[in-house]
């Protein structure tokens, strides 16, 4: 088993209303030393042991499904099974 962690975030030019709402809420809680909150998505994907070329596969999955290249970018880390714990 191999664990892959994928992070998808909006491109910088894209408005992130959730991030903004959260920032307002944080300020509302009295934390005024915060300046900028962005919200993205985080995935943990498990590959079985017969997976061969995880890099290529994960790129395809991200390009086609997990991220929309019009507005998002992604990055990922491959963690092996031990590292996952």
């Amino acid at each position: 088993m191999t664990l892959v962690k994928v992070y998808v975030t909006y491109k910088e030019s894209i408005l992130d209303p959730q991030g903004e709402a959260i920032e307002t809420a944080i300020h509302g809680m009295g934390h005024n030393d915060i300046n900028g909150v962005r919200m993205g998505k985080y995935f943990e994907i498990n590959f079985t042991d017969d997976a061969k070329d995880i890099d290529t596969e994960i790129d395809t999955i991200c390009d086609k499904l997990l991220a929309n290249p019009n507005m998002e970018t992604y990055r990922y880390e491959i963690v092996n099974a031990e590292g996952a714990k």
Partner: protein
Amino acid sequence: MRFAVIVFPGSNCDKDLFYAIKDGIHAEVEMVDYRENSLDEYDAVMIPGGFSYGDYLRSGAIAAQAPIIPAIKKLAHEGKPVLGICNGFQILTEIGLLPGALIRNRQNKFICESVELIVEDNQTIFTSEYSKKESINIPVAHGEGNYYCDDATLSTLKANDQIVFRYVNDINGSVDNIAGIINSKGNVLGMMPHPERALEKIVGSDDGLKMFQSILKSHMNRVNL
């Protein structure tokens, strides 16, 4: 004229669209399952609103992988009318038949209300029954309806008259108040507002009817040529 209404798991405006065609313009219409792979028997494809796959991940993203998608693309390339409403619009951008993307509303909330739209272009097969710059009332209901595209795309859309509907007021942060756009060939239209919910005065407005009449009429004109 035969219409196909595509049903994805989680589509929920499919029946409304079905009634709009059947009772609104009395045309032939069938519901087509997302697992089909041919649309050859149809003259037009309608992609309904709703929450295909629960809108999970990103609205329209999972539907974009469905078996029916290549058939929709094929029909679009043949120049037949393809209309995507709300989630249908989101799917059309996800599969690249229309440029840009629909992101979360500026106010970070789902909105449902009747809004005023301007018909910017009545020279399309979807809008020929409207007059130019006609103001119409159509309901919206979406959480991710904020149309986004980069500056270059926007210039192209403007230059080619591809912006078909604009909101009179900024309701969700959309670039240039865009409510609906068409592809450069003029046969694929995506819009966030729901014309299929505006067919009778009793439910608030019948301003959506002309849209379906336009599609039917344009088709008849083509067939009669």
